[in-house]
């Protein structure tokens, strides 16, 4: 009886994905115990909540996800508009919507709603996807991205843009269009530069020359780079990172937690983390490759690549090869919102995988 219940509980869960996500959660708790042990209890609560959501999503069939795609998207865009009109300002950006009893950050919702929506759209157009469908998809993508970028929240805007782009890419956007877009983007870079906020420009500038402003904007990058470099091959040992323990690393439990891990576990630790991420992504792409419908394929592929984008952008910025944008290290950075979003994605992958044998209609 109990065994049966347990079996029912874990039946929608994909063991390889769960094992990899579990490994990442283990790393997360290990590093957090060193960087900010007082936050362990609340992070355990966050993890529990995220796992519950993952389990719920995992048991929902893809059809149900298709049903909520459009409403979720519209709801998200409405909320973004509401934020732009009535949002709370915090740290110079208008990102939060105060509902009276809680504050929510609607841009986070778009990370899931966006690929759902676009996958749903292409599914609807199948089997005859025309060129203008890519245009419509691009429009569906750019409206919320623009709203988020306007808040301004460059990190989230990039993630949402990436999520939507991955769907369009997997839906077969022709290479010549992509090359054309790349050229156009390069040409538009100066214009984008002029439209950017000062702090965004400063972050890009400090990437190229962090020492130019060692106490100001370059401080984050300099200190995290020192932490990583001084970790060496084997690291300084758990709890022994001087950069981390003496608080030289800023945001060391959230966006810069990778620097803490890197300082204490060294190159070996970094390699282990990269391998786990690579395996997680490989598993995700495998699930996408075996997915039964266009919707599930596009969704699984895009979500998997979002995991990659999180990881790459975060590690790139902390190690000083990408500008500082507010992107957490997936599954590892402290914080409930990102964790829920990520495990929502894991849940979707599991659902797609469980239902791989179902044939449409």
């Amino acid at each position, binding site marked *: 009886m109990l065994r049966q219940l347990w079996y029912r509980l874990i039946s929608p869960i994909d063991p390889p994905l769960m094992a990899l996500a579990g490994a990442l959660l283990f790393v997360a708790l290990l590093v957090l115990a060193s960087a900010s042990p007082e936050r362990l209890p609340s992070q355990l609560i966050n993890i529990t909540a995220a796992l519950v959501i993952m389990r719920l999503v995992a048991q929902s069939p893809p059809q149900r996800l298709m049903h909520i795609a459009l409403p979720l998207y519209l709801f998200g865009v409405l909320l973004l508009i509401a934020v732009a009109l009535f949002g709370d300002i915090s740290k110079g950006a208008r990102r939060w919507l105060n509902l009276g009893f809680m504050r929510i950050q609607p841009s986070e919702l778009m990370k899931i709603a966006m690929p759902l929506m676009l996958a749903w759209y292409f599914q609807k157009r*199948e*089997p*005859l*996807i*025309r*060129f203008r469908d890519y245009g419509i998809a691009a429009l569906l993508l750019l409206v919320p991205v623009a709203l988020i970028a306007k808040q301004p929240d460059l990190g989230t805007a990039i993630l949402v843009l990436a999520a939507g782009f*991955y769907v369009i*890419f*997997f839906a*077969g*956007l*022709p290479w010549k269009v992509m090359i054309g877009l790349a050229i156009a983007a390069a040409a538009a870079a100066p214009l984008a530069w002029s439209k950017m906020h000062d702090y965004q420009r400063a972050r890009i500038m400090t990437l190229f020359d962090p020492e130019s402003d060692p106490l100001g904007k370059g401080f984050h990058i300099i*200190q995290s*780079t*020192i*932490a*990583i*470099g*001084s*970790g*060496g*091959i084997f690291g300084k040992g758990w709890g022994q990172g*001087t*950069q981390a323990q*003496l*608080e*030289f690393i800023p945001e060391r439990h959230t966006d810069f937690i990778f620097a803490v891990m*890197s300082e204490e576990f*060294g*190159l070996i630790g*970094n*390699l282990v983390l*990269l391998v786990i*991420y*690579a395996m997680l*992504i*490989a598993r995700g*792409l495998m699930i*996408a*490759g075996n997915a039964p419908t*266009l919707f599930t*394929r596009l969704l699984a*592929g895009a979500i998997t*690549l979002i995991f*990659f984008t999180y990881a*790459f952008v975060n*590690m*790139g910025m902390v*190690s*000083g*090869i990408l500008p500082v944008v507010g992107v957490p290290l997936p599954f590892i950075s402290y914080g409930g919102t990102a964790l829920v979003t990520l495990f929502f994605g894991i849940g979707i992958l599991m659902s797609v995988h469980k239902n791989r044998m179902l044939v449409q209609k």
Partner: protein
Amino acid sequence: MEFANPQEGLEKFRSRLGVAAGFVLFCFFLLFARFVWLQIFQYSYYKTRAEENRISLVPIVPNRGLIVDRNGVVMARNYSAYTLEITPSKVGDLEETIDGLAKIIDIQAKDRKRFKRLLEESKNFESLPIRNRLTDEEVAKFIAHRYRFPGVDIKARLFRQYPFGDLASHMLGYIGRIDTRDEDKISDQEQDDNYRGTDHFGKRGIEQHYEFQLHGITGFEQMEVDAGGRAVRTLARTAPVAGNNLTLTIDAKLQGVVEKAFGDRRGALVAIEPSTGGILALVSMPNFDPNLFVDGIDTQSWQELNDSPDKPMINRAVYGAYPPGSTFKPYMALAALEYGKRKPEQGINDPGFFNFGNHQFRDDKKGGHGYVDMYASIVASCDTYYYMLANDLGIDNIAKFMAQFGFGQRTGVDIPGEAEGVLPSEEWKKRRFKKPEQQKWYAGETISIGIGQGYNAYTPIQLAQAVATLANNGVMYRPHLVKYITDTRSGTQTMIEPQPVKAIPLKQENIDVIKHAMVGVNKEGTGARAFAGAEYVSAGKTGTAQVFSLKGSNYKEGGTKKELRDHALFIAFAPADNPKIALAVLVENGGFGAAAAAPIARQVFDYYLLGKMPKGPAGETEAGDGD
């Protein structure tokens, strides 16, 4: 682009998955390459930077060396006291903070002014004292309210203290907060590391000259600090080494006797032990309280000192250059003997004036001294004798001879700010003036040089060195203030000198003639009144230096404005046959040397040779004949 065939669409999708996988691998490889670069190739660089972040060297300032007199009496010491300090960079509104503090602790306007001055001069991140010497009660009060004042703290600091206040202030000097000039000196000595953490530096006097002896070696505490600069724990500690102690040749009690003897008169006195060159007393009056400067002097006191017409901040003993007046005559007489221009018994008839060209040089005494030989010329201070002698010797012989006694040259005494003075000669005039007609030396100018007037200008310490050298039969020592330096760690004492600088080649019989005449001065001459009843035999020479030349009218002591009155001088040594002390006294605008300066010398000798404490300031004796 259309997917007509589902199978074809799946193939296409899978190929795109492959592209994505390739892209992911490429990006991860890029990251890995970055990590290898940082953690293997740049490892030692970043390791060093992490250590620099973590470790902070906190200097431990050494105790400054003590200054004691020849008998071990402490003249400069350190004491520990609590100060209330503000770190301006950690305080939001300075004014508000100080106002708040003033409600608990007594902070006066002058404290605020001083703090403002320190603030302007301060480096970043320094903590600056707003109040010094807190009482225990004040400390307790502040601690109770500390939480209200972030960036304000109580610190235990060592303070320099001069226990005798203004006694010997010019000689001792003082310490004050390091300024840019001090920083240059520190850099010149490559002492920058050793002065990390040091706030004070010797200014003036012994404190300045022996700064690097007194300072000591700074210790260091290796602290682990966090990003906020807060110390987490101590990693290592190197103890500081206290500065060396200085033992002076000065006799603090004698110094006190002299300063009392001056009363409120301006002037200087330098007393030297002839057999070593050790300075027994170095006085410049008025003096000041060096303790005022230690915490940073407040503006009002500073202005009072600076604006005073008495110029208390000038060390007259080494910086003031005065005509020697008649105290020059014994050396002139000695020159005459050495050059063979006069014999002791050879006399002149003094009509009361000496005519040279169409100018008449008058003697002090109306109608003249009558028949005057060398002895009488010194004892009675006859001007005419020396007008004629100067003319016979010529300026260059005078200059050459006087240079041997150190006139017009810095003595090399171990305190800063010594003036050179002027030993006039043809060559000096060429150097001194620009226009050709001014550069020429006129024979008439030599005449007044003979009585210590004209271009002659010497510092009191030069006069003292010369008379000490004469007392010592021509063997010259460099006047100095520090007898020995004690290394506080090993206890070894390094003696300073006494090595004779030189022995002036003089005939002893000639010296004896001069000394005999100087004894006569105090026995039956111009110094006789001041030395009446002395229990020892002393030798001296009075002098009066004109501040302002009064042509054609008689000089009347009482009838001239004080600033225009003559300077009174006296040189002396005692006991005459075995000199233990030689000195030069100058009383600015004191009038006659016999009246104003000689009595001070009497008190000094009485104290030094007999241990007699004077009853009050040296009174003016009534003027005898001449100066």
